[in-house]
């Protein structure tokens, strides 16, 4: 071992890795280029997309203030070497002169020069862009300037960039979703067993609503109570379920529950043995938060293309959608009435063939749900009966408007 004195006066040992111990590596200020790959001379930014649950290529979907928000920086990868890893940093502020917040990327972008060359196709793969999760303080009501501050080779030097460097986003205030979820515990007379929704079904529904619905938050309460019905079920069961939660709602609003609160019942399907088809009791033409609905819950096992731990999420969101005035778009044809004459996307999809819209599921780490881009032509709106459900812009904006109406019309009077 040799010793050198650096200019600051303190001896600094320079360790040479002995052949017998290959794991002692010399400290270096810059990573060897052989490890980072060839550094591009510059990169071209094609677009910056600010997105929540659903977004169009021109940013037409309303951004809800205080809602989880993703920024995608789309880079032209066609002229870059595959395997190059890029990362970056955003600078966000409310105006040019305001203090800035610096936001690191969610990991890095590994360049794939063979990736689809069109931005429309690239948008369907979440890993095809440099992604950033905005901090909660950056999504307050008002304008936000989003600027790409730096791009650099992961572990290496900064890279010059051209193209779109900054966009302006507007966040609009929205009320929360107030929901009381009531699990109805019932006895199966044929087996003597009692069934109630497991915690996973409440959790999946709550998470889905927070991620998909046009709300900054879900004000959620839940409880399990004994049902006024038993199994085996018949076609009256769902009516009894809805009547019971309507009664519960009335008594609780009479005792101070916020009258803007929606009530939804969950009924476990007992591993598929007792499936109660969901029903909302009404599709109100105007704000009516007392409209109740009931949904089955259970393990999907491929139901509507769902293979995770619960189908309460999209099913409950569908029934809840009716209570906000949403009709069926009519897909698949023959399986559903087509009462929503204004539904704009073919086949109940999130987008037409122009791929203008992409769904974004920002994920939930508590449930192991990853961040995902949801192709607009391979996913369907949650008001359909089709597979792979998410929320389309038409439903997103309509529920947002209805929530505003409810919030204004039914706010509790101040004593």
């Amino acid at each position, binding site marked *: 071992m040799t010793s050198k004195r650096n200019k600051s006066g303190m001896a600094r040992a320079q360790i040479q890795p002995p052949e017998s111990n290959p794991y002692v590596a010399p400290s270096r200020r810059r990573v060897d280029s052989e490890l980072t790959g060839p550094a591009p001379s510059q990169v071209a930014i094609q677009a910056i997309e600010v997105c929540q649950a659903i977004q169009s290529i021109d940013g037409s979907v309303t951004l809800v203030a205080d809602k989880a928000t993703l920024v995608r920086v789309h880079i032209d990868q066609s002229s870059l070497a595959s395997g190059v890893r890029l990362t970056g940093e955003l600078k966000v502020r409310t105006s040019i002169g305001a203090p800035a917040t610096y936001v690191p990327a969610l990991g890095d972008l590994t360049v794939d020069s063979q990736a689809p060359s069109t931005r429309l196709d690239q948008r369907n793969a979440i890993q095809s862009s440099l992604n950033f999760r905005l901090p909660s303080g950056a999504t307050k009501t008002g304008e936000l300037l989003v600027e790409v501050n730096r791009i650099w080779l992961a572990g290496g030097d900064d890279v010059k960039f051209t193209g779109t460097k900054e966009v302006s986003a507007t966040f609009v205030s929205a009320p929360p979703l107030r929901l009381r979820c009531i699990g109805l515990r019932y006895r199966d007379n044929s087996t003597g067993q009692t069934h109630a929704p497991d915690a996973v079904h409440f959790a999946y529904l709550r998470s889905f609503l927070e991620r998909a619905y046009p709300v900054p938050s879900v004000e959620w309460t839940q409880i399990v109570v004994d049902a006024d019905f038993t199994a085996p079920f018949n076609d009256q069961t769902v009516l009894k379920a809805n009547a019971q939660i309507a009664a519960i709602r009335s008594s*609780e609003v009479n005792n101070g529950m916020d009258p803007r609160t929606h009530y939804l019942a969950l009924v476990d399907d007992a591993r598929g043995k007792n499936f109660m088809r969901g*029903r909302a009791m009404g*599709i109100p033409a105007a704000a009516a938060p007392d409209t109740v609905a009931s949904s089955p819950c259970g393990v999907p096992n491929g139901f509507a293309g769902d293979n995770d731990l619960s189908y309460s999420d999209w099913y409950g969101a569908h029934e809840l959608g009716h209570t906000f005035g949403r*009709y069926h778009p009519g897909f698949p044809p023959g399986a559903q009435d087509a009462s929503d004459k204004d539904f704009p996307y073919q086949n109940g999809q999130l987008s037409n063939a122009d791929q203008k819209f992409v769904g974004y599921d920002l994920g939930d780490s508590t449930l192991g749900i990853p961040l995902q881009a949801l192709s607009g032509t391979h996913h369907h709106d949650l008001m359909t009966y089709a597979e792979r459900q998410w929320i389309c812009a038409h439903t997103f904006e309509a529920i947002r408007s209805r929530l505003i109406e409810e919030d204004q019309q039914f706010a509790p009077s101040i004593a």
Partner: protein
Amino acid sequence: MVEAPTNAYAHVIANIDVSSGQGGIDYVLPSRKRTGSDRLAGAAPGDPQVRLVLKDAAGKEIGGVHPELRFEACDDGEKPHRALIQQDVELSEGLAQVDLEFDGKTVDTFRPEQAGPIDEQFRETASWGLPLPGDPDKLALGTGKVTTHSGVSYMVQAKPDNSDQWQTLSIGKSTPEFVVDKNQFPGASSLDVRVTQNAGFESRTVDERTIKLE
């Protein structure tokens, strides 16, 4: 403890099938205020075929309303025909009966019997929080040993010490007995529980106590 809240309304929950004309009154819940959304919903005028008819003790009509019919969504492709009614009815002096009518015919009648206070019966026989045998998370409350009357039902509500909101655990039961599941109140160490008798268009608290959850 006896409370006699001033109830100005009754929230009527009923079901009707406009294809068959069958239906029934499921709940009549006295309340201090309107609990439905219909007052501001701008709902379409109620279906003329269906009517809630208000009558006095002699059976004479003293009022009526065409309620909004909330037809079920997600039906099996046919035109919706089963509906829920969630109607606030303003209580008027002399109101003794509510009829559900369809096409002028009475489908169901809510006419509560006279029911005296059960407070003494309740206090003498009710349990307050005894764990069920073999299931210590479930606590037995109330009693089934009260005289039942038509149109008289019981509601059990609870408020944990970590919340301001009364939660309804049981409603529309003919006897005031209930099992509390402690695990429905995470983080709470005690629970205020009250039993309310809904006797027709009046309600009164029969008893209210605090039970320990830990």
